[in-house]
């Protein structure tokens, strides 16, 4: 390894992919996806089913050759030096690749050996990973006899037993109960301290609790890419719900500064849409007192993450129709 490469590794992103595309026959499952992952970061890959999340992950782990594009793991080209690059990746596919008639320890030992953990360190690595993934007393159990939640942990354990730089988890919480989901999420957060984590999901709250950054995929394209903080900003209200004892005419409300549209709801309620940063709340309260409308409710409407998601993933559907 040249000296400058060694010096750069600390600041270098652990994973960079640029211009990834994948064709299945005439269908293009993934088009021009680019992503980078920094050390200690959790990136969420979000998208409806069939958006190309799994295909992208299969390409990033060398299970599928991209039609175009380039992938580097810690600066190593995955397509030119697959074994060197794969040694730095831990991957949990959508279906955990578990050998049901192996015990947890046997399985993790094979995983560690295959991922080039030095022979002398294998046993220690297995014990450490087992403890980390909450499998302390499970070493001698056959994987096939474990519950789904524990099997998922074994799946994560095999992905991190060799301390990879990049951990790629495809829907790690799918099919688990709420307690198990919380535990797995805590584990993922903990992993982020020492590894870069890329995870895919279609569970929206998961992204907010676990990820630092999010990329939303739809029909094989990246339609949104930003930090979680920015995503929250995106959700911040652009509407108020108000209720009055003695409601004024709609015209009076639409005349308020900043209000663009007024929607009449049931029970003397109205929804006032306004421009970003043009919140009319203050003026509204003052006017209500002056003109005796009897304001009893004033709620800023937060766009739910679902709405943002639906908005982003359906926007392109209309022109796609022939």
């Amino acid at each position, binding site marked *: 390894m040249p000296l400058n490469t060694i010096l750069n590794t600390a600041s270098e992103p652990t994973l960079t992919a640029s211009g990834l595309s994948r064709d299945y026959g005439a269908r293009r499952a993934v088009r021009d996806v680019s992503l980078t992952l920094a050390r200690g970061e959790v990136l969420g890959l979000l998208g409806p089913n069939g958006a190309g999340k799994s295909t992208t992950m299969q390409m990033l782990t060398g299970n599928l050759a991209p039609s175009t594009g380039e992938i580097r793991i810690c600066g190593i080209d995955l397509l030119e030096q697959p074994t060197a690059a794969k040694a730095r990746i831990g991957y949990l596919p959508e279906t955990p690749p578990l050998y049901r*008639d*192996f015990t947890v320890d046997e399985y993790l030992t094979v995983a560690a050996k295959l991922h080039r953990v030095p022979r002398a360190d294998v046993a220690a690595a297995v014990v450490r990973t087992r403890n980390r993934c909450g499998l302390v007393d499970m070493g001698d159990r056959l994987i096939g006899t474990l519950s789904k939640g524990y099997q998922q942990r074994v799946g994560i354990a095999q992905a991190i037993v060799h301390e990879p730089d990049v951990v790629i988890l495809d829907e790690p919480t799918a099919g688990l109960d709420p307690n198990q989901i919380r535990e797995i999420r805590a584990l993922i957060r903990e992993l982020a301290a020492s590894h870069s984590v890329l995870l895919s999901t279609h569970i929206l709250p998961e992204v907010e609790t676990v990820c630092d950054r999010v990329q939303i995929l739809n029909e094989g394209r990246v339609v949104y890419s930003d930090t979680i903080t920015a995503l929250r900003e995106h959700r911040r209200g652009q509407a108020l719900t108000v209720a009055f004892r003695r409601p004024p005419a709609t015209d009076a409300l639409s005349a308020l500064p900043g209000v663009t549209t007024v929607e009449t709801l049931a029970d003397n309620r109205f929804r006032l849409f306004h421009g970003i940063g043009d919140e009319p709340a203050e003026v509204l309260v003052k006017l209500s007192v002056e003109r005796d409308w009897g304001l009893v409710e004033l709620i800023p409407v937060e766009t739910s993450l679902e709405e943002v998601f639906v908005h982003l993933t359906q926007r392109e559907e209309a022109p796609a129709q022939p």
Partner: protein
Amino acid sequence: MKMILTIAAKELRGLFGAPLAWVVLAVLQLIFGYIFLVALDRFLEMQPQLAQYPDPPGATEIIVAPVFGAAATILLLVVPLLSMRLIAEERRNQTLTFLLSAPVSLLQIVLGKFLGLVIFLLAACGLIVVMAGSLYAGGHVDLGLVAANLAGLVLLSGTFAAVGLYLSTLTAQPVVAAISAFAVLLVLWIINMGTSDPASPLHLISLMRHYESFAKGTLHTGDLAYFLLAIGLFLALSVRRLDRDRLAT
């Protein structure tokens, strides 16, 4: 090499972790033992007459050779059952990703799986050698003939394993892999039966033809090359087929 051994060990662990391997070994031993005893019995009956010939066939030729001959046919049936799981079952259980994501090459995966199965088959061949050894208790054993037979059987079962492995890479259904491997092996086994012309090229590709000389105790480099080439060819095809999964459109 270390990776190949790791994969081979994993395969053996998978084989012995399931009852199939034990059942196969037990049934093989039962059949081999029966054939061995029948041959031994016949030898004891024939012994007085044989003594009248100037250069009579020995115990090894009459007792051990038939067991090896039968073993070849039985392994033709058994190897597809063992090889079917190598790739097809991993595909069906979606565990192949475990190996494909690991920093090992496809060649290492294929060689590891092949080696794992061959080691198992060596154990089966070993059963016969142990039985042949028991003849030492009562007489002379022609070690050269046993060695030639053993070499032939090992090469033959290696070829069976390579063919089975390749057919296992073609499908995600273990049963389909087993049946197609059996069909291919059977055709290769008897392909020269249809011809009466001794110069026919069909003799060149017949498995049985190349195995026969080992059974007689002779070792031709041509036969040796045939088996090694066949093993190499099917292993190379397996690597190619697995690589196509990655490129699949």
